[in-house]
């Protein structure tokens, strides 16, 4: 399960940090750090965090397998 935050949109409301502190954290006053990969135990929290983001900056992909055909195929 993977996620990405559009940090252009992010304004440091920190809702995600309250809801899923193991995945999102603030560095200083408003710089957001996040774990791009999370596991099943965090799913609920990440879902809540993504829904609560006032600027809808969090994109989540709940699938866990690599993109079809993209790995480890080479050439």
């Amino acid at each position, binding site marked *: 399960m993977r996620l*990405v935050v559009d940090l252009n949109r992010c*304004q440091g409301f920190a809702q995600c940090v309250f809801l899923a502190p193991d995945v999102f954290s603030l560095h200083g006053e408003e710089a957001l750090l996040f774990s791009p990969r999370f596991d099943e135990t965090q799913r609920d929290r990440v879902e809540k965090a993504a829904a609560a983001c006032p600027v809808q900056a969090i994109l989540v992909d709940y*699938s866990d397998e690599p993109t079809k055909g993209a790995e480890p195929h080479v050439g």
Partner: protein
Amino acid sequence: MSADTDVEVLRRQGRIVVVGASLAGLRAAETLREQGFTGSLTVIGDEPYEPYDRPPLSKQALLGRARPEDTALPRRRDIDAVWRLGVAAEGLDRDAKQVRLANGDTVAYDRLLITTGTRARPWIHPEEAGLDGVFVLRTRDDSARLCRKLTGGVSRVLVIGAGFTGSEVASACRELGLEVTVAERGPAPLVGALGGVVGAVADRLQRRHGVDLRCGISVTALEGDYVGRLRRAHLSDGSAIDVDVAVVSLGAVRNTEWLAGSGLAAGPRGIACDAGCRVFDVNGIVTDDIYAAGDVARSPHPLFDYQFLSLEHWGNAVEQAEIAAHNMICAGPDRRPHLWLPMFWSSQFGVNIKSVGVPPLGDQLVVAQGTLGEERFVAVYGYRGRVIAAASFDGAKWLGFYQQQIESGAPFPPEYRTVDRRTETLEPVDPAFPDPHLPTHGPTVTLTGHSPSERRIKFVPSHA
């Protein structure tokens, strides 16, 4: 057959090839499917990985809070593509409409999208660049290698170049408790992107966090020992420092070499395209089957005097890819222009730095909110009497407002009242950008087109 029928056939059974399996390539592929493209889709990438996110590689990955191999980008939908990964595109034959790959294969296309991006500018001396301990930071592999090195007991790190990547690396090193020296040819960190006034704040920030920052200095040589391990760096002021790691952060080089001989307007400054992402050929004729998006593209923007803009920005890659994908599979009148306002972020030394617009175009600057001394402020850049950009240190929530100001051509200096304003900083000053001809780490926004003030060619009719 009318052009509209052609587009219908293309959408149903055309062959679209995307060269560049990164953020822009992935978002373009998703958009093509989203908009009903059912033909064949091939994505070609020189790295063996599916598209991944780069910003964490110089931030949380170096801090050990995320693994570089865990940054694969989330997908918005299944794209049902043929992936050709771990093999670079090596040539383009526009007559045969084929991309040639490094392994000798060819891939035919009806529409081609080029998203080959940039790579890290390597250290100037190849032999020194090959020393054990000399790094660049651009790819997932670069980040993994550097992470291993930084956590493996190093004594002092040298960062060459104090642009955004260099400054982020220096920040991570300090947080890891490592001694770090930063050598910057310009007068201050971030000076190419934000100018000397804001650069001076970044300068204080670095020194306060214990960085041995040396500006106005260049590294003249990297010296290794008898087994090829980096040992010492020589600086232009005649001094030398003992280091076992050097991170070369001298900006990016556009990946356009593979297009040599293709007849496209592609060179060191990127691939020229129109506002609809259609690539120009060397004669300035727009192609209708080849598109470009992301870091490698440069296109004219009406808000910035129609100069060609080339943007190494995450958001631009997403937006431009979506526009390019849309335009590739629709008829002329339905095409849309890519008029994204440049926007980027960086986080270093615990400060969130954001920018909107094109600061390097600015000829004046005011601090509209906060103060430079508190390292919490919004600096607004003016160009010929209108607002052209804004940069914030820990002031992200204000940038949406400045985005509107820039888009509406609001007058400069600003006439509005702002929250948290300090009257003593409202006097416009020169933002102090270095002469763009002097080499430094380079800004992430580059104006690569004409400047209307430079009239170098004048047309004089012979009968006049």
